[in-house]
């Protein structure tokens, strides 16, 4: 839940999450439109804006993917309303086509594109550096180092964008987006949330003749941007010395603390706009310097521009960066300190920070697990049985969502995970060439709407025999249960049209569609077996929809409303300690006692009842009926 302090009074200092701070900053600059597809670590930006949208009279939506989000936000800006589109870093790949063209046509009202980066890949499939997108598209990149700065940057970015006619790409990292820190609130400067699209086809229709003119225009714009970034308060030089540390984004926070605590005699050039490099400012900072170290995460974006500046102006200064700092993972205090000490010719082991002893005991790993009551667990359990019952060899083409956890034991029903929608796309190829194997694409409801539709149309059109299993838990669960077209609610909490996945599949021409409830294992097994048999016998695609809402989502509502859930327990005498429930089904609510018998933690049990169907000895029974309202919470 977003902090209510996001709408606190001007002058107040409040604790905000970096993402909440970005939302506040955008509101201070008169934001009227925001759109996003949820993705960690970006989600709370638009979640926060959605929570205040009605109160402020602005429009906020969860879009079906990042490309749609960006296109919609652009159109708002072109119609005279300040707009924001947010996404995680890999979301910009999806939106890249739009991003490039939007740079060409430019903006009218301020347009802020936030791409939250994830060095160390806390919840991502790669750690790509999207500052390169800014270079490629001639779009300035703002990189904040704290929640407080993120708020200032978001507000300034919208002004800067409008003044120079350029979209702005802001790239907070996980450590800014998901850090809470004190933020001083400014004045809200609301603007009209409605505008008017004034036609200008020479600018806005990118046919080749117009695009050539726009190409000239954006190069000219870039020259103005390169000059203007020098005057932004996010770029500054602290101290003076013959040794200069240039620190970009969050790296500044680590460099500042390391330099202060180690008492080093260096100047620090703080860069808040890594693209384009504030060349005038940095040139002044290094004027009297002999050696410069660039400290930045991921790729040498600032380092390359600085080396280019030094080479083209023939400056007599040595520039280092990645050779001391390294490429992989996020910045840390000791990493920054070691790089600086080594660069200064000191012993890098002189940092005061040294790990203590670890325990001399083997500790079990604790990978993330599907929650108690998670319908995906039941679906995976039934799917494995259905595949085995037909003696099939399956290739499980997986996707991005909670169900990715099916990669882990005991299920191991994810053989391939690439990117959003990749499950069905790749299954098209598997279906054609993987001999003796059946291709099963596993995708969630939100991901299906995001990028699954074109790939399913492809399967129908080309007659590729594959099973698409949509795990429809009715919300975008992984990022915190945001609504999507399968929920029937909008970001702003209004009732929306539910788009049933089976209707979409039939509409696209899929001839075999089954829908089942994973909480009924027998029904799930029969439906999956039926659909698999159809694919094998008829050499055509089929779609199976596993429909059961996210148990975490329902459990949260139940707790909030005080609705009693059913409760299951193990009958001591009947339990044979076979371990099927805790080793083959692995519900986290099921514990193991010292005699190997199972015990269900009543604090964790959500009452789904699937373990009772899994137990071969009928040793798990319902010991408490849920209240009648509990059944009604599921939709």
């Amino acid at each position, binding site marked *: 839940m977003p902090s209510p302090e996001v709408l606190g009074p001007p002058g107040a200092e*409040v*604790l905000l999450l970096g993402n909440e701070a970005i939302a506040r900053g955008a509101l201070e600059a008169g934001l009227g439109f925001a759109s996003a597809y949820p993705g*960690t*670590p970006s989600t709370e930006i638009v979640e926060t804006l959605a929570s205040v949208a009605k109160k402020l009279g602005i429009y906020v939506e969860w879009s079906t993917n990042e490309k749609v989000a960006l296109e919609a936000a652009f159109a708002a800006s072109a119609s005279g309303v300040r707009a924001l589109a947010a996404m995680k870093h890999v979301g910009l790949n999806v939106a890249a086509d739009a991003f490039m063209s939007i740079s060409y046509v430019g903006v009218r009202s301020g347009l802020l594109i936030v791409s939250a980066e994830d060095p160390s890949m*806390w*919840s991502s499939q790669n750690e790509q550096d999207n500052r390169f997108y800014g270079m490629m598209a001639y779009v300035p990149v703002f990189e904040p180092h704290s929640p407080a700065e993120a708020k200032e940057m978001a507000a300034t970015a919208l002004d800067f964008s409008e003044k120079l006619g350029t979209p702005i790409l802001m790239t907070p990292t*996980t*450590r800014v987006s*998901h*850090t*809470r*820190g*004190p933020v001083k609130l400014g004045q809200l400067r609301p603007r009209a949330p409605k505008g008017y699209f004034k036609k200008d086809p020479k600018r806005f229709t990118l046919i080749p003749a117009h695009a050539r003119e726009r190409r000239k225009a954006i190069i000219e714009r870039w020259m103005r941007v390169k000059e203007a970034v020098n005057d932004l308060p996010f770029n500054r030089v602290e101290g003076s010395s013959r040794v200069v540390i240039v620190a970009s984004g*969050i790296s*500044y*926070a*680590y460099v*500042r*603390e*390391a330099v*202060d605590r180690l008492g080093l005699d260096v100047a620090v050039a703080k860069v808040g706009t890594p693209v384009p490099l504030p060349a005038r400012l940095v040139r002044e900072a290094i004027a009297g310097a002999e050696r410069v170290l660039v400290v930045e995460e991921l790729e040498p974006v600032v380092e390359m521009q600085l080396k280019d500046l030094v080479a083209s102006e023939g400056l007599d200064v040595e520039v280092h960066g990645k050779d001391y700092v390294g490429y992989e993972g996020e910045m*840390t*205090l*000791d990493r920054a*300190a070691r790089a600086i000490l080594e660069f200064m010719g000191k012993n890098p082991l002189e*940092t005061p*920070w*040294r*790990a*203590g*002893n*670890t*325990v*001399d*005991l*083997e*500790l*079990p790993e*604790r*990978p*993330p*697990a*599907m*929650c108690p009551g998670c319908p995906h667990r039941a679906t995976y359990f039934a799917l494995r049985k259905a595949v085995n019952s037909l003696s099939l060899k399956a290739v499980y083409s997986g996707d991005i969502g*909670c169900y990715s*956890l099916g990669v*882990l*034991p*005991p299920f191991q029903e994810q053989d391939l995970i690439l990117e959003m929608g990749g499950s069905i796309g790749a299954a098209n190829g598997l279906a054609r060439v993987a001999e003796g194997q059946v291709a099963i694409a596993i995708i969630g409801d939100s991901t299906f709407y995001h990028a699954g539709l074109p790939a399913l149309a492809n399967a129908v059109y080309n007659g590729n025999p594959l099973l698409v299993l949509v795990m429809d838990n009715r919300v975008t669960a*992984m990022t915190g249960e945001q609504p999507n077209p399968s929920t029937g609610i909008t970001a702003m909490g209004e009732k929306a049209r539910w788009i049933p996945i089976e209707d979409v599949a039939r509409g696209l021409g899929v001839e075999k569609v089954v829908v089942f409830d994973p909480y009924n294992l027998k029904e799930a097994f029969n439906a999956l077996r039926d659909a698999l048999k159809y694919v094998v016998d008829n050499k055509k695609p089929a779609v199976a929809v596993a429909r059961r809402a996210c148990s*975490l989502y329902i459990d949260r509502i139940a707790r909030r409303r005080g609705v009693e859930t059913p409760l299951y327990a193990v009958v001591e005498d009947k339990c044979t300690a076979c371990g099927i429930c*805790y*080793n*083959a089904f*692995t*519900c*986290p609510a099921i*514990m*193991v006692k010292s005699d190997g018998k199972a015990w269900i933690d009543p*604090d964790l049990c959500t009452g789904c009842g699937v373990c009772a169907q899994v137990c071969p000895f009928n040793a798990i029974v319902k010991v408490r009926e849920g209240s009648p309202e509990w059944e009604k919470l599921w939709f």
Partner: protein
Amino acid sequence: MGRLSILAAGVGGQGIITLASTLARAAVASGTKALVAETHGLSQRGGSVEVHIRLGDVHAPLIAPGDADVLIGLELIEAARRVSHLRSGGLLLAADTILRPAVPGVRVPSREELVSAMRRAAGDAKVVVVPARELASKVGGLLFSNMVMLGALAGSGILEGFVGVEELERVIGTLRRREENLKAFRLGLDYCSTHCSSGRG
């Protein structure tokens, strides 16, 4: 003002983020700068979670290895996993709770194994095992263990000069189920007032 670095560890769903943000809000209300770095994403799915809380004269959101003044564990395995982050002479507050990872055939160490291994590794740091589950069950269940542990942290006296107990209680009062949360906080505070002050708990 100096600085205080607190590493909080546990399992997704135990309320670590609520513990950390409550502490940080109370710090800001006490006039102390606070940074709280969270690792989300997959963590609400029962994975291992850590939150870095830094108070006072700080810029970096993450605590360097061996630089944590306090390690606060809501679960024993997760506390044991991070003992090396503690500085020498630091304080380790661990809830007396073990949650079995949902992994087939996993071997879970016993409470005694975990506690003695932690004491061995912690060296001259002080180790206190707090009966958080027992105390939380007095107010309404496991759910309130996080506030018991926040109370224990306040009861240890280490927050003095950074965060006031009054400010903490005021912020806890804004949470849902405020009565239970406040009670849980006070139970932890009382426990630590007697068990954390001298010698090993």
